């Protein structure tokens, strides 16, 4: 059920401001693709345009094509809501719903869409998703406690469980570990490795080691200059990217000699 994503000539705008320019890439199914690059270069914007979350911001719009398994996401007949049902997202800061218990948070995707599910089905979804997010063992005895009662790392894994509970085809992760300690980070990286067998994963990260550890392909974004739009400098298999990049600025960034 995992799908590949083809991006061609994508320009992303905030109002009149061109934030990301001319992106072309192919994200392979059942693999992990990492976006790296300096702050403000449009990695997150790029990620958000892959499930039409970008246009939630007033004035934001997109030109170009994003094709998921043959279907163009930005076709006028496409409903952004159904796009987001198939392409899940995990955010930088853990954001469980404060009014809901752990159990209800996992089921939020089903419950909020008023999908009728039986009690036993709900329980199996919750267990499967929490096991998938490596959280089941820690919370199985307190599923009725509020989601906010968990630690930051657990909350982030709860958000991942929530995202995979609706069985998306693609999972987008926007710096999922930037607010977490090293132990929680390594738990989530392990999780990404496991999820790879079922999902197409795209992850934005500031952590080069993380990109090297978890991803199969890496895209490096950069700004030509301050105020200029961000662009994709290089898109290559991670191994090549970190050993023998095509582009000089990629090597400069990865080796820490940026600018």
């Amino acid at each position, binding site marked *: 059920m995992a799908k590949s994503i083809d991006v061609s000539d994508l320009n992303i705008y905030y109002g009149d401001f061109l934030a990301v320019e001319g992106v072309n890439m192919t994200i392979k199914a059942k693999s992990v693709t990492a976006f790296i690059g300096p702050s403000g270069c449009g990695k997150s914007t790029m990620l958000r345009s892959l499930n039409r979350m970008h246009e939630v911001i007033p004035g934001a719009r997109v030109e170009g094509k994003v094709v998921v398994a043959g279907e163009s996401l930005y076709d006028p007949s496409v409903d952004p809501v159904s796009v987001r049902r198939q392409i899940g997202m995990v955010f930088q800061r853990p954001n469980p719903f*404060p009014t809901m218990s752990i159990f209800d948070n996992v089921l939020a995707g089903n419950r909020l869409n008023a999908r009728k599910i039986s009690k036993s089905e709900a329980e199996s979804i919750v267990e499967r998703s929490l096991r998938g997010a490596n959280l089941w063992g820690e919370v199985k005895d307190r599923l009725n406690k*509020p989601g906010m009662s968990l630690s930051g790392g657990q909350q982030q894994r709860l958000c991942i469980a929530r995202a995979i509970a609706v069985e998306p085809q693609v999972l987008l992760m926007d710096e999922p570990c930037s607010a977490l300690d090293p132990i929680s980070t390594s738990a989530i990286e392990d999780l990404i490795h496991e999820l790879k067998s079922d999902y197409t994963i795209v992850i934005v990260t500031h952590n080069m080691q993380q990109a090297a550890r978890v991803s199969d392909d890496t895209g490096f974004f950069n700004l030509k200059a301050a105020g200029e739009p961000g662009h994709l400098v290089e898109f290559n298999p991670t191994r090549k990217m970190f050993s023998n990049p095509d582009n000089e600025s990629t090597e400069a960034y990865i080796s820490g000699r940026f600018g």
Partner: protein
Amino acid sequence: MTTLEQTTAPKSTSTLSRAKLTPWAPWLVIVVATALASLIVLLGSWSWYAVPFLAVLFVIIGLPAWSAAIEGRRAAMDRLATCLVWTSLLVALVPLVWVLTEVVLKGVPELSLSFITHDMQQKLDPVTYKMAAGAGVAHALVGTLLITAAATVISVPVGLMTAVYLVEYGAKSRVARWTTLLVDVMTGIPSIVAGLFALALFTLLFGNGTRSGLMGAVALSLLMIPTVVRAGEEMMRLVPDDLREASYALGVSKWRTIVKVVIPTAFGGILTGVMLAVSRVIGETAPLLVAVGSLDLMNANIFSGRMQTLPVYILTEYKKSTPEDYNLAWAGALLLILIVMVLNLVARIISHVFAPPSNERR
């Protein structure tokens, strides 16, 4: 009054320690100031009401002066500020406590089962064969509860949906800006104007002399809507965008996000806002007098005819100017305060139950 010498202030050579007044110094000053004030009042044969004013004045002068002499300038300023803050608190608190005590003291003797189950209908006394005036508030109680409930039913949906528009859809559009401005203007509408508006509206629609509880409800909802809009807007703006995005990212549509995520998260605050609005209008007299009128009998049909309400009941009884009627007015006032209190307590309990347990970390 600062003749008391501070003996417990050793001269120290340390630069960090300094002389200090004993912890009970403020209490001592208060006692001395009260005694001094009483003495002056006694000697000058002034009214005893002057005592608290003089005493507070002496404390405000005396404590900082004593402190300045021993502790130094900065500590003295601190004492002065403390005195002023406490005085302000007292000034704010005294009228509140005073009014409450007065209403309770004068209202309680009249409160009885018969008072809250009868209206003001005259009855023939079977012993003396004279017409005896009724002494009950049931009709006003029913009227107030019905009209306020109707006003709430009208204003909560309108107010909440306006707030939803302003926060979720309007953003910074011109319509939203004008709506906000008009809501702010509406907050300042004199309540009697709201009453006159309802009167004019219903007269136009149903002809001269129309009176009904519904007219009062419309007038009150004009006063409630701005408060509900404001509260709803503030509370929904406090809901982090993270939660909206989390919901959108799960493929939840916008209106479901609003209904299932935004409003539940803001529920406690919205409820508090609605209760504030209810508390504000439940004591309104002028619009009800204009739009609903006054009646001595029970009328529980808000769609037709005059009705009695508690504030108008208080006014009516006060205008009759007999000791018995004054007592009835006090009891009515007590009842009104009790209703507002109970409503607020209930709202607090409900919003506590629904509040997001965000502070309960492990």
